[in-house]
């Protein structure tokens, strides 16, 4: 039976390869196209923050404009202005925004008097990754603001200590403030956003590549349902009468499917290398457990349904939904919050992470 199984695999590989070439090229074309759309400059900011500014000082708008145009803020956080405190709270409550910032009246003038009014930061739950991003950015901005404020206050204190008159004090403070503003404008980036952006794009490329590989391997039910005979009564009867147990029959066919998938992976590996995508050479060995898991799923599905058409349609529906919920078709950040939380329990997400690790670590 082993010798014949090898012959079956060799005879079936052209059909499997044709499927993978057609579906694989389509899947990757869509994946890389969507990646470019998603990460085009300014089109993707995962973290939305609602913001209320009182109209008691023109410095509020200047400050808002300065902060929202910082490279690191612009590429990672979308600051959206609201007209009232209530609207900000409502936006957070409705999950339109991850967090809300409420600037109190007198905040701008307080910077110079040392009154230190606090900005209110509103979260709905404050336990997601996005919310931590907002917290960290706020901490960095508060430090920045505090350093500026401290330097201006130091100037006032020193002028007072050395009995410098009001006109001269005002002149010195103006110089200090101009330096502060110049420093803030020159330092438009809190952190090196270009590197961050590159990492995000790179991670997304890895994820989409790994997810696309798993997706096309899972959907190979379309072709392998014609290969696997475990749902065919005639074959089951024949196997039983020949003394071959259903388990042995299943294992043999799973091994056949896995070996065909492996051949396809080798071709996939070669194609990615030709496309200049850096892929781990060790993955040729490390991918075997991943392929074993997927071939068990694919063969299992083929055995569960009586006809190839039924297994193909049902697996397409189920795997597409699971892949979507695992963030394999669209980044998880684009999904509603409750679906993002649910992704933790999605087995395909673990499989995608494992494949990413195997291919790119």
């Amino acid at each position, binding site marked *: 039976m082993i010798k014949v199984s090898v012959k079956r695999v060799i005879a079936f590989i052209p059909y499997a390869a044709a499927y993978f070439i057609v579906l694989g090229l389509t899947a990757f074309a869509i994946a890389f196209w969507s990646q470019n759309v998603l990460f085009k400059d300014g089109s993707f900011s995962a973290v939305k923050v609602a913001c209320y500014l009182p109209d008691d000082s023109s410095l509020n708008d200047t400050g808002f404009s300065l902060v929202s145009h910082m490279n690191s803020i612009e590429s990672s956080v979308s600051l959206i202005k609201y007209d009232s405190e209530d609207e900000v709270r409502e936006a957070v409550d409705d999950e339109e925004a991850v967090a809300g910032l409420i600037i109190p009246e007198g905040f701008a003038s307080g910077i110079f008097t040392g009154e230190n009014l606090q900005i209110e930061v509103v979260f709905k739950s404050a336990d997601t990754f996005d919310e931590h991003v907002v917290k960290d950015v706020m901490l960095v901005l508060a430090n920045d603001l505090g350093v500026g404020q401290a330097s201006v206050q130091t100037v006032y204190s020193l002028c007072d200590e050395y009995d410098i008159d009001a006109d001269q004090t005002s002149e010195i403070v103006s110089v200090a403030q101009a330096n502060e503003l110049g420093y803030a404008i020159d330092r438009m980036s809190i952190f090196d956003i270009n590197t961050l952006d590159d990492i995000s794009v790179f991670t997304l490329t890895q994820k989409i590549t790994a997810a696309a590989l798993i997706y096309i391997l899972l959907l190979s039910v379309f072709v392998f349902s014609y290969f696997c005979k475990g749902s*065919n009564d005639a074959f089951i*009867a*024949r196997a039983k*009468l020949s003394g071959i147990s259903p388990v042995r029959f299943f294992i043999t066919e799973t091994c056949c499917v896995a070996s065909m998938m492996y051949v396809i992976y080798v071709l996939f590996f070669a194609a990615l290398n030709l496309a200049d995508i850096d892929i781990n050479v060790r993955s040729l060995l490390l991918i075997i457990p991943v392929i074993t898991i997927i071939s068990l799923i694919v063969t299992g599905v083929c055995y569960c349904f009586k006809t190839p058409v039924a297994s193909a349609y049902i697996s397409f529906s189920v795997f597409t939904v699971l892949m979507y919920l695992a963030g394999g078709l669209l980044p998880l950040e684009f999904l509603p919050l409750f679906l993002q939380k649910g992704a933790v329990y999605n087995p395909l997400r673990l499989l995608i992470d494992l494949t990413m690790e195997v291919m790119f670590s």
Partner: protein
Amino acid sequence: MVKIENVTVKYKKTVLRDVNIQADKGECIGLLGLNGSGKSTLLTTIAGIKKPSQGRIYAEGKIGFVTQENALIDELNAYDNILMWTSMKKDEIIKALNGPQLSILKVTDFLNVKVRNMSGGMKKRLALASVFITGPDVLLMDEPLSALDIPAKNDILSFIDAFKANGGIIFIASHEENVFAHCDRVYHLKDGRCQLADLTRPVAEILND
């Protein structure tokens, strides 16, 4: 010998009810009935693939089952399809196919042809040969002549005669009148009951009872 004693098979409803048949060496038993009358169920129960709800089946020797749908793999040729179910070597297989009984099926004429390129008759001959080559004492055949041309039917009927002549036991489920001429007894299955059919009457008339 095959002895079917008080066999009842139930799924959601009772498919076979209290069936009793005995077949001795060299006998051919025909099973006649409309679609869904339980012919295929009886054969799969004799093969041991399905267990009877009541009663018991005693079968002496090895059983071979030629199912209605062929257990053949499209992308392999005839030789590999035979090899799949046997541990025999190539020369042993060729020798067996050229033997007195299997040569009737003329499988050596298309040994290197892939199943997908075969006609219905070739597939049926191959399916029969691949079962027979494993040396069964009891042969179960489900609709062996369906959708075959006359030469293919004649070859398979000749094979049945040869198998009987060598002491084999055959159970055939069929609608074809000319099959029953080769049977020693024919049973009519209706509403789960199995009774001896009077073959002096036309098959169509028996089925309408």
